[in-house]
């Protein structure tokens, strides 16, 4: 039996020590009438070799990014992961319990988390960061709840340019709250010319019951937001600015949200060291201004000393957490995303300051080149004029689905059709380029789209 060490002789001996004549005797507390009859209806067990073959064949039913040119982003980004990342993260000493309960045996994890917190603070321009949350969407929901606890106000303004699935998650989290804060989520439109959140609309919506304004930056359309302007009006209203970042490579170029006036910065650090993995596990992060520390959800590691005065690390401010505070905790989160945070740390450490800047610049260059190539195609238009980072929106003037299908036949995944999330953008594509998209791939994409569009226009033309 895989993974079970006992021989039959040992089982008998142990049963005897356990005071039982048979295994069944140990199971008497299970209700006799409800015991599973026979075996579970599951496929029979298999050898490791058979399993590996089975899984390889299942994996081959998917198309990895190696096989096609993929221009998808929208909250999950394919970046090159340096080899050292997985080698380090695979060291089994890092495979521990979900909580480093015993700091003496967990200094490695604890110091790594402390460093991760430091990285996040540096990137976001914030004072404190927690050890991780599940993902960018739930981190956004936690930030909204946190803002509510801080301001004791029920209302939330969500930018419509915030990732649509993040908006969904926020409303799921708020949906059942007895104060029915759920009902006071208000969506702020984006400016159809700029592609960024409509600042005037924020101003109008900022009433006395608004806990926070939530902006994504770069937003779901890849567009940069006017964080400073929004921070100012929010603060003037006693509301907080929550900034969501789900393409953190942008931190290498962009002014940090902290410098721009954000109060809480949350988002997704998957871009650092973590593969797409069909959507998870990714890496939610949260950082905030110092004064909000005690309202922060999730775990925190702090530096301290041991009995002999040596530097040591441990969990701290645990009184915010569920295992101490139970229903009065700042969140129910317990297991977080420790290993993916470790991967992010290693990637960031390998990049260093200059590396991150270069990587961000490279992403900008790739996306800019792609943008230039695509926008010169007849029938293809950029609709938003604000600056973008590594993704942007195209209007094709036609339903993108058949276009995507033709591209797919040529091995190109040409972006995300936005109609799925924005009925008003049903002729639009969100297109992303990162360092993994080679110039050749980009050129092929542009050529292929040119051909498709020509035939579409031809058809429409006649």
């Amino acid at each position, binding site marked *: 039996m895989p993974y079970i060490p006992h021989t039959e002789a040992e089982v008998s001996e142990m049963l005897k020590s356990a005071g039982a004549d048979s295994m069944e005797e140990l199971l008497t507390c299970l209700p006799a009438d409800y015991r599973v009859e026979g075996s579970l209806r599951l496929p029979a067990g298999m050898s490791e070799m058979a399993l590996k073959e089975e899984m390889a064949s299942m994996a081959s039913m998917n198309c990895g990014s190696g096989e096609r040119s993929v221009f998808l982003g929208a909250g999950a980004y394919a970046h090159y992961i340096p080899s050292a990342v997985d080698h380090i993260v695979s060291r089994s000493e890092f495979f521990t319990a979900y909580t480093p309960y015993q700091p003496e045996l967990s200094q490695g994890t604890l110091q790594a988390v402390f460093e991760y917190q430091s990285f996040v603070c540096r990137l976001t321009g914030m004072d404190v960061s927690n050890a*991780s949350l599940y993902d960018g969407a739930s981190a956004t929901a936690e930030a909204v709840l946190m803002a509510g606890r801080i301001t004791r106000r029920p209302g939330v303004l969500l930018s419509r340019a915030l990732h649509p699935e993040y908006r969904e998650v926020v409303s799921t989290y708020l949906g059942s709250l007895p104060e029915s804060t759920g009902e006071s989520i208000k969506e702020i439109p984006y400016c159809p010319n700029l592609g960024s959140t409509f600042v005037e609309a924020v101003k109008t919506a900022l009433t006395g019951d608004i806990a926070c304004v939530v902006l994504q930056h770069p937003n779901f359309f890849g567009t940069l937001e006017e964080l400073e302007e929004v921070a100012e009006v929010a603060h003037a209203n006693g509301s907080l600015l929550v900034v969501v970042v789900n393409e953190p490579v942008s931190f290498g170029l962009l002014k940090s949200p902290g410098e721009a006036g954000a109060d809480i910065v949350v988002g997704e650090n998957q871009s650092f060291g973590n593969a797409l993995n069909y959507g998870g596990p990714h890496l939610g992060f949260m950082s905030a201004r110092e004064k909000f520390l005690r309202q922060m959800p999730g775990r925190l590691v702090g530096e301290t000393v041991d009995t002999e005065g040596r530097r040591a690390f441990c969990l701290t401010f645990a009184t915010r957490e569920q295992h101490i505070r139970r229903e009065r905790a700042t969140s129910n989160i317990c297991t977080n995303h420790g290993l993916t945070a470790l991967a992010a740390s290693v990637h960031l450490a390998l990049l260093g300051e200059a590396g991150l800047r270069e990587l961000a610049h490279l992403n900008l*260059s*790739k996306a800019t080149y792609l943008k230039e190539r695509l926008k010169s195609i007849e029938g293809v238009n950029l609709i938003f004029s604000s600056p973008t980072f590594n993704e942007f929106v195209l209007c094709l003037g036609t339903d993108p689905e058949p276009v995507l299908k033709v591209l797919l036949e040529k091995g190109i995944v040409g972006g995300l059709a936005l109609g799925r999330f924005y009925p008003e953008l049903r002729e639009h594509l969100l297109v992303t380029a990162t360092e993994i998209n080679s110039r050749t791939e980009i050129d092929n994409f542009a050529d292929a789209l040119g051909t498709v569009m020509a035939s579409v226009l031809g058809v429409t033309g006649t």
Partner: protein
Amino acid sequence: MEEPVLFERSVSGRRGVSPAEHDVPVTDVSALIPERFLRSQGEEAETTYDPMLPEVSELEVVRHYTRLSQWNFGVDTGFYPLGSCTMKYNPKINEDIARLDGFTTIHPYLDESLTQGALKLMYELEGYLAEITGMEAITLQPSAGAHGELCGLLMISKCLKARGEHRTKVLIPDTAHGTNPASSHLAGFKVVQIESGADGCITLDSIKEAMDTDVAALMLTNPNTLGLFEHDIVEIAEIVHERGGFVFCDGANMNALMGLVRLGELGVDVVQLNLHKTFSTPHGGGGPGSGPVGVGAELAPYLPTPRIKKESGIKREGESYSFEYDRPDSIGRLKAFYGNFAIMVRAYGYIRRCGPVGLRRVSETAILNANYIKQRLKSTFDLPYDDKPCMHEAVFSDTGLKETGVNTMDVAKRLIDYGIHPPTVYFPMVVGGAIMVEPTETESKAELDDFIAAMEAIAEEAKEKPELLRNAPFTTKVSRVDETRAARVPKLKWMPKDHMTAFD
């Protein structure tokens, strides 16, 4: 070996790995992005953030984390009987299959025709978990156990609304894990605590008494955190149902039940599973996990979106799998995309490798190992609940050690010197100085015997050299750490010496 915080190794201008080549024209950033958006560069930046990220070489990064790893204790290092955590062996093959390119590189928004393998895997995993738990339907979306709890509670809430009922309370036993009340609160419920009976289980009477029309659900853990099977669960469930409530089972302890009983058949309406425990995936220093939720028929319409659908295609040969988004009664989404897929791959692999016979043997052996330890140690350590065999874990207390002056914490710290990770301590709170031992099925008799011997030796030491215990551990990189100071003088991130504020 001392290993400084990485920033302290930084030398300005040093490079670790360089990003890929710039094979497209190098853009002029300031021409594309107005200055107000840009991170300051050069000198100014350096004084503010000195540096933003540490600048170290690849070898230094590798050494840094290699050394950090050496200060950690994992399951591959030694026995890890951390109660309620199911620290079993994480099969290496699971790491390999989870790293197959066809799984790691797929984008969640790829056309479904390009991800049939992933969809099939998830669909089948749902089926397996339904079979194991006896539930009607499973969602794989939640990211961890607590996330699953929230998911289940939101479904109960939504279902009650649909029924037109306004129930505000959730009953939770005093032995429950902290996430249970925290999730209940997050889902908008008030928590009512139920005291365990004399044998460590919930009594029928306490439920009869507490169960009124305000109660939305009873949330119990089975086996509970004392390692005991809630023997009255069937009757309890009947009462809760009769009075219009739901039974939510925290399934974090499923490692004791696979192939033995199905929770759904015992009357459970919702259960969350911790794939990262029972189904054996590593969760380093805090995850990632995966917390699927199983529900009975009444709650199924409320499952989060999207669902996974299987169709016997007409165009495509054989089956085809797709996401179903149109679920009008759903509570909505709990995370972006579709769940922690890489964890599901491992759990799927584990289930396929073990098969039904293996899974049953897993649970039986987990129970055997716990009972073996329980019986062998109960003359040395106090065992508050001992009416029946335990399930996957046994909880001792430190009351027998009172007169020696040492307590559970001291015993735990001393165990470290014996090369063993301490059990969970001071939980559940109903046991004074609890020592919660969950050996799991992957540990050999020899390993258990070593643990028993260590515990016995420590009990001796407690009498003869109590200061040894109070000052333990002696074999670790650091001795006991000053947790009070960590909270009093918070240093939550690294700062260069001359930038330190009182806060740092």
